[in-house]
């Protein structure tokens, strides 16, 4: 069994992806910026959109997952690539003190550690994740999430004085 790689012109492929997502799902925003498809969806649709990307459109590579703490809400970016340079940036925003979003591990198994890292650093829980433990920090006796904006590093004051 071999992995089939996409063929054809990059621009046509990106347009195809944009239409492919647009026809199947309700997108909040969709555009092509600097050689990549950028779409914004509601948090409940993420799993369905990822499934479309992998199964219907053949975008097989999940590059990484970035979480951004927007103070009060979290912005999650899924960066996908089709192994021939066609990029898809999928964004969603989740609200709340204890944010929860569906896991991508069922669709992209590589999301396993990316989601564990996000859980460790931000406290974002991924519902349905098979193994949601902390990745870097201590498993016990440490209830902080270091990349939250509310977690100040001790030298912060020095930097603010310099700025």
């Amino acid at each position, binding site marked *: *069994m*071999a*992995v089939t*790689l996409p063929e054809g012109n990059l621009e046509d492929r990106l347009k195809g992806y944009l239409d492919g997502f647009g026809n199947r799902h309700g997108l909040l925003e969709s555009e092509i910026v*600097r050689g*990549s498809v950028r779409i914004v969806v509601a948090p409940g649709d993420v799993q369905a959109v990822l499934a479309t990307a992998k199964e219907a459109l053949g975008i*097989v*590579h*999940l*590059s*990484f997952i*970035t979480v*951004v*703490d927007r103070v009060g809400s979290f*912005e999650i*970016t899924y*960066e996908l*690539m089709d*192994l*021939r*340079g066609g*990029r898809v*940036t999928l964004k969603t925003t989740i609200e709340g003190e204890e944010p929860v979003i569906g896991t991508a591990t069922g669709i*992209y*198994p*590589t999301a*396993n*550690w990316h989601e564990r890292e996000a859980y460790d*650093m931000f406290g974002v829980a991924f519902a349905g994740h*098979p*193994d949601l*433990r902390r*990745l*870097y*920090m201590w*498993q*016990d006796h440490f209830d902080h999430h*270091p*990349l939250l904006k509310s*977690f100040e*590093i001790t*030298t*912060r004051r020095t*930097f603010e004085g310099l700025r």
Partner: protein
Amino acid sequence: MLSEERRVEQQSALTEPAAARLAAPDVRDEFGLETIDMSMGPQHPAMHGLLRLILELDGETVVRCDPVMGYLHRCQEKIAENRMYPAVIPLTDRLDYFANMHNEHGYVLAVEDLLDVEVPPRAEYIRVLMSELMRLASHIPSIGFLMLELGAFTPILYAFRERERIQTIFEAVTGARMMFHYIRIGGVKADLPPDIPQKIWDYIEGLESRFQNDFVDLIQGNEIFISRTRGVGKMTQEKAVEMGLTGPPLRCTGVDFDLRRDYPYSIYPELEFDVITDTAGDVEASYRIRIAECLQSIRLIKQCLEKMPEGAVMGDLGRRLRPKEGDGFGRVESPRGEFAVHIVSDGSDTPYRVHYRDPSFCNMQLLQEVVPGHYLPDIMPIMGLIDPVSGGWDK
């Protein structure tokens, strides 16, 4: 309470045979023995950096492998949020310390994505020249490490002899042997010293003539090498893509993916090189890939030296960088795979969020999948296939 939690945590990481054994704890093999848990690392003489593997062993066969990381975690992403854009570059050197140039390049590309600065062509050539030298300085020792893990001591001496000479070149160009801080936003720190292109050329010619003898003839046909690596760590293409592998571990299964060609950055479209693939998908194939990629790097370095234009090495930039709001992405093909940087800017002079996608981190997921079923001593050759670097997976 705690022990119950622990049990659930451990159970969730089990593979199928181990889970079955846990469900029926009274089952013993024909000698009445059960599996034992063993912790390998973080301070193990053969381990690559600070990694702990929790292994469940049935005799000498691994049933479960659960990597534990974080022993070198410095929270680079948090530090980067508290520094101005140019001040993050020296930190990226400390990520994957066998691919410093690639880390710098990836970060700088992400910032330039937001700035729309024009980088002079000479600077682009120098960046690629340095990146390819760095790839040689990473691939050759990784072959040496693989052989060291199999018990052969000579190749690591040859490998470090070559790395030492490349580091001397780096020292002459950048002023540092490992932590360069050379590639800057908008160009590179300084032009090459006048005598260096000739020295690099002489060194590369010498390496090319030694290469076959020192790294191919010495290793490739060796019976012990073949018996320890052929068929070890074998994986299919689907599995490799599913696990998000990139770089040599992906290409050794036959998936033809190299960011230098498929997501071109810098001046790679102007240069000629081949993307090397292999079909075996085991440790031996990854060794062959690295050998062939070294030769491609030599080809690229020669082309860079031949085609390098004259001119400035730094673009026109203000003193204080305030990139526009939005997302900046930078991707490079590091020796271990896809190194990506995602910067979120809020328009101020410090990044709002920096995220690194490190190839060692993603490629290591294959340990959980591939190691079960292998013998305990096969773990080290499989680590040689991935060639992870501690600073990379721990950020």
